[in-house]
């Protein structure tokens, strides 16, 4: 029957569309193909002057050049080391401090308004005084990144602990768990989604602080490379820098953040309270 064949074809299409859509690689990389193509066409058609806008071919060859000269790898590793140090210290300080504030009535009462206030002072505003203290050094950058990570993390942990269902705590207590065990076995894991959210928020800010610090303090790093190129009027390096930054964040997300969230939160069937773009 004519109609029947048509229906079957439509059904097959539906299945294929679904398979394609489920393929992670296709889903994430697919959309970039037409975008890069469009970029190329716009560049080739010289819609904008080439001093302002260069095509992917130029960017790619410059990218190769920068790698060959060793500039990009060394700047990249500078940026990554700063980020790593900042994040490491940020977590080491923020996680324990967050749980202390969350668990202790007095710590909470005495620090909560301050937390709110320090969170409100945009991290970049700390750069000047930090430069006064530490000069144009690695310590200065690390300090700012630590700052950006600690506060969102602490605030997330406090709200995460608050959201642990009371019944879970009661259940654990009535099953004979000590206060300490309630913390290690119920509250800490229960607050984990919040920790993940906090790390994500903190990294989002820390990442920007890093770029800002490199632009402003500037001696090396991807941010410095971009701003230096801008001063020289070299748009190609700016493009290279932005793409490297974007890819880096993607890699960070795909290789570290997402697996961490998957292995903890989703495995336990807990859904992050809110999926929010950062």
């Amino acid at each position, binding site marked *: 029957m004519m109609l029947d064949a048509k229906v079957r074809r439509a*059904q097959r299409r539906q299945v294929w569309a679904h398979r394609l859509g489920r393929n992670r690689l296709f889903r994430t990389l697919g959309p970039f193909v037409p975008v890069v193509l469009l970029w190329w066409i716009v560049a080739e058609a010289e819609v904008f002057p080439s001093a302002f806008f260069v095509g992917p071919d130029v960017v790619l060859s410059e990218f190769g050049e920068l790698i060959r000269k060793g500039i990009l790898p060394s700047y990249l590793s500078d940026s990554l080391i700063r980020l790593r140090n900042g994040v490491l210290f940020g977590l080491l300080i923020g996680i324990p401090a967050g749980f202390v504030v969350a668990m202790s009535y007095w710590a909470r009462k005495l620090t909560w308004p301050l937390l709110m206030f320090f969170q409100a002072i945009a991290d970049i505003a700390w750069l000047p005084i930090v430069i006064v203290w530490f000069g144009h050094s690695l310590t200065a950058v690390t300090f700012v990144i630590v700052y950006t990570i600690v506060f969102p993390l602490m605030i997330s942990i406090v709200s995460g602990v608050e959201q642990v269902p009371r019944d879970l705590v009661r259940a654990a207590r009535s099953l004979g768990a000590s206060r300490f065990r309630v913390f290690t076995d119920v509250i800490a894991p229960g607050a984990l989604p919040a920790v993940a959210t906090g790390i994500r928020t903190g990294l989002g800010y820390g990442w920007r602080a890093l770029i800002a610090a490199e632009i402003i303090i500037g001696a090396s790093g991807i941010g410095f490379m971009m701003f230096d190129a801008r001063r020289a009027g070299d748009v190609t390096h700016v493009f290279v820098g932005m793409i490297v930054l974007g890819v880096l964040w993607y890699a960070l997300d795909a290789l570290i953040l997402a697996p961490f969230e998957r292995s903890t939160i989703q495995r336990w069937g807990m859904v992050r309270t809110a999926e929010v773009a950062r």
Partner: protein
Amino acid sequence: MSTLEITNLHKEFVDVYTGETVTAVGDVSFGIEQGEFVSILGPSGCGKTTVLNIVAGFDTQTSGTVHVDGRAVDGPSPERGVVFQSFALFPWKTVLGNVIFGLRMRGVPRRERDVIAQQYLQLVGLEGFERKFPHELSGGMQQRLGVARVLANEPAVMLMDEPFASVDAQTRRKLQEELTGIFETKRPTVFFVTHDVDEAVFLADRVVVLSARPSRVSEIVTVPLERPRQWRAALDSAEFRHTVTYLTDLLAGDEPGVPADVDRA
């Protein structure tokens, strides 16, 4: 000619994971007359919701036709109002805002729609709650609002998919009685999906029984109860009990697990 006319309705879903097709609705035909209350009864998963979704225009059939007042169904339309199990009230609109929603969409002038809204709020017993938001109402009140919202639009058919399934048992009884009351005064045409036999019989003029998948109409039972109806009187009446027993047996003989259910479409 019936108000709602369903002819040889057939619906297949594609399981996009395995690529297999599932027949949700085998071959369903029946009609609902103007001002008639018809309950659709059938075992879980037999495709009741699917039929309702197709009639509402939310989904499209694989083959077969659905006509309302002689016109083929093509997408959602205010002539087919839907009362949802989950209420589906707009949380950002007040009680009044929800009731007049459909009238506003049709461009009814403000003065006129306020009069209509008052009338329907009174009908469902929600006068005085106009300024409240849905989350400030109890479950039962929310579903009354859901009914008022649809009736205010004066649809050709009101479609209800287990509308009372998410309220407690006592409220459900009360809402059922209220619904018959409303039906008796307004005489809308109602397509009511349920798998509660008592409910189906108590409310309906006729009960359409669907078989397990691939579903077809296994029987259409006319309910011999007088209107107005009340639970107390219904439970006492032999006709009610006979009809319920009859339908219960019918459904029991058709539970999944019987070989006829195996579908290899």
